[in-house]
Structure formats: structure tokens, C-alpha cells
């Protein structure tokens, strides 16, 4: 496998992980809404004064299943939280310089990559990994 293929594979893997994390985060949000509704109605049903023992047990089973689902949602959330951004003040010239070898690799041996830093470039506040990915 060439260096180019390795780089392409890493890029594909990174994009796939990013998509999965976004999906997990969005799913956790929707599940949390639904689990709140399930838990709320279980609590209201359990208040019924004329419930049989079987009915109470059924409500308790639904409630417990909801709690287990909430636990799974927390795990999904923990997974997606890797995407939380930590913006900081960055010197983009320096950032671009650090990825010059990667750019050169991706461009291939027949293309020369030359970076001309702009000395007048201001600093920006951004999340370093995001800036890196988008460059």
C-alpha cells in the first residue's frame, strides 16, 4: 500500500468516525426526549389506585427498560462528546506549516506544495482539530 493510499484510508476512516459520532449525538437527543416521556407516563400510571399486582409489575418492567435505555443513551452521548470543541487562539500560519508534510504526501510526488505564509494574517479563535480537518 502506498503512502497515498494510507493517507486516503485514514481520511476515509476519520470522516466515517465523524459521521458516526454526529449520528450518535443526534440519536441520543431524540432518545432522551422519548425516554423522558416514557418515564413520565410510567410514573403517572403507577399512581393509579386500582392497579392489580400484575399491572404494577408491568409498569415497573417498562420503567426499568427505560432506565436501561437511558444508560445506553448516556454511553452514546459519551461517544459523541468527543466532538466537544475547545476553541483557542491560533496562528494559522503555524498550523498550516505543521501539516505541510501531509499536504505534500496527499498532493503526490509530481506536485510540489509551497506554502507562503501571510505575515499580516491575524489570529483566529477555533478548535485546532477542526481547523486541521478543514484545511
Amino acid at each position, binding site marked *: 500500500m502506498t503512502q497515498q493510499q494510507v493517507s486516503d484510508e485514514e481520511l476515509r476512516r476519520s470522516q466515517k468516525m465523524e459521521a458516526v459520532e*454526529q449520528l450518535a*449525538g*443526534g*440519536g*441520543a*437527543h*431524540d432518545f*432522551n*426526549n422519548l*425516554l*423522558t*416521556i416514557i*418515564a*413520565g*407516563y410510567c*410514573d*403517572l400510571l403507577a*399512581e393509579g389506585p386500582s392497579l392489580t399486582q400484575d399491572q404494577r409489575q408491568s409498569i415497573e418492567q417498562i420503567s426499568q427498560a*427505560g432506565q436501561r435505555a*437511558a444508560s445506553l*443513551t448516556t454511553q452514546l*452521548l459519551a461517544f*459523541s*462528546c468527543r*466532538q*466537544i*470543541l475547545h476553541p483557542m487562539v491560533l496562528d494559522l500560519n503555524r498550523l498550516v506549516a505543521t501539516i505541510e508534510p501531509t499536504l505534500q504526501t496527499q498532493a503526490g510526488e509530481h506536485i510540489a506544495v509551497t506554502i507562503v505564509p501571510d505575515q499580516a494574517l491575524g489570529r483566529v479563535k477555533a478548535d485546532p482539530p477542526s481547523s486541521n480537518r478543514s484545511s
Partner: protein
Amino acid sequence: MAHILIIDDEPLMRTMLRDIFERQGHSVQEAPDGRAGLALWRQNPADVVLTDIFMPEKDGIEVILEIKRSRPEAKVAVMTGGGQARQLEMVPAAMILGADRAIQKPFDRKAILALIGNLLGERASPDGCATST
């Protein structure tokens, strides 16, 4: 008993919360987004406003800002679905902008009643899980 305004874009969430609060003797109004919620608020200011953060039209942050600007003593609590990083980041922002309480979904009946009780200055249940970040 209190008058509670629920603002959430999930209809089942509003219905469930209405059922819980009305069984406690509270009166409830509900709205599917911040714009409709603020319209109700202007007509009939509630004792407690319980709002989701991310909604169509006006979001929960705008709801907090407008209510606190017109009536600083009004009680506002935000609900967050967690889920996405930006939602978690909005909770401290909501508190800084004036929200009195925040509660993260999923929550149960005991937790939401404890939160409302706290906001109303009542004695909350000792094991209530409402958060006051």
C-alpha cells in the same frame, strides 16, 4: 398552586408534562416554540416557564432573555436533551443569561416536580434530582 408555561417542540413532551403538573393542581399553558411561548407569556405571565433550548422559530435562549428583561423576578427553567455537544454547551450559557434552573432529559416525574417546587419556593422532596447548575 402555580401557573406553568411549557415550551417544547415535542408534542408528547408537552402533553406528558401537562398531565404531571395538572394532577398536582397546577394550571398549564403550552407552546411549540419560543415565539408562541412568548406570545402566551405576554398575555398571561406564568409563575414558572419551563422551556426547551433548541426549537424552531425562537429558541429557549431568546425566551430567557426576553422574559428576564421584562420581568427579572420571573422563574425560568431550561430542559436540555443532552445529545449533541452544542446542547451541553448551551446549559451554562442559559444559566448565565438568567435561567434559574436546568434539568437534563431524561428526567422523571419526581425530578421535574422537585424542580418546580424549588422554583416556587416550596419544600422540594429530599431525593429530588433536579439540578441547579
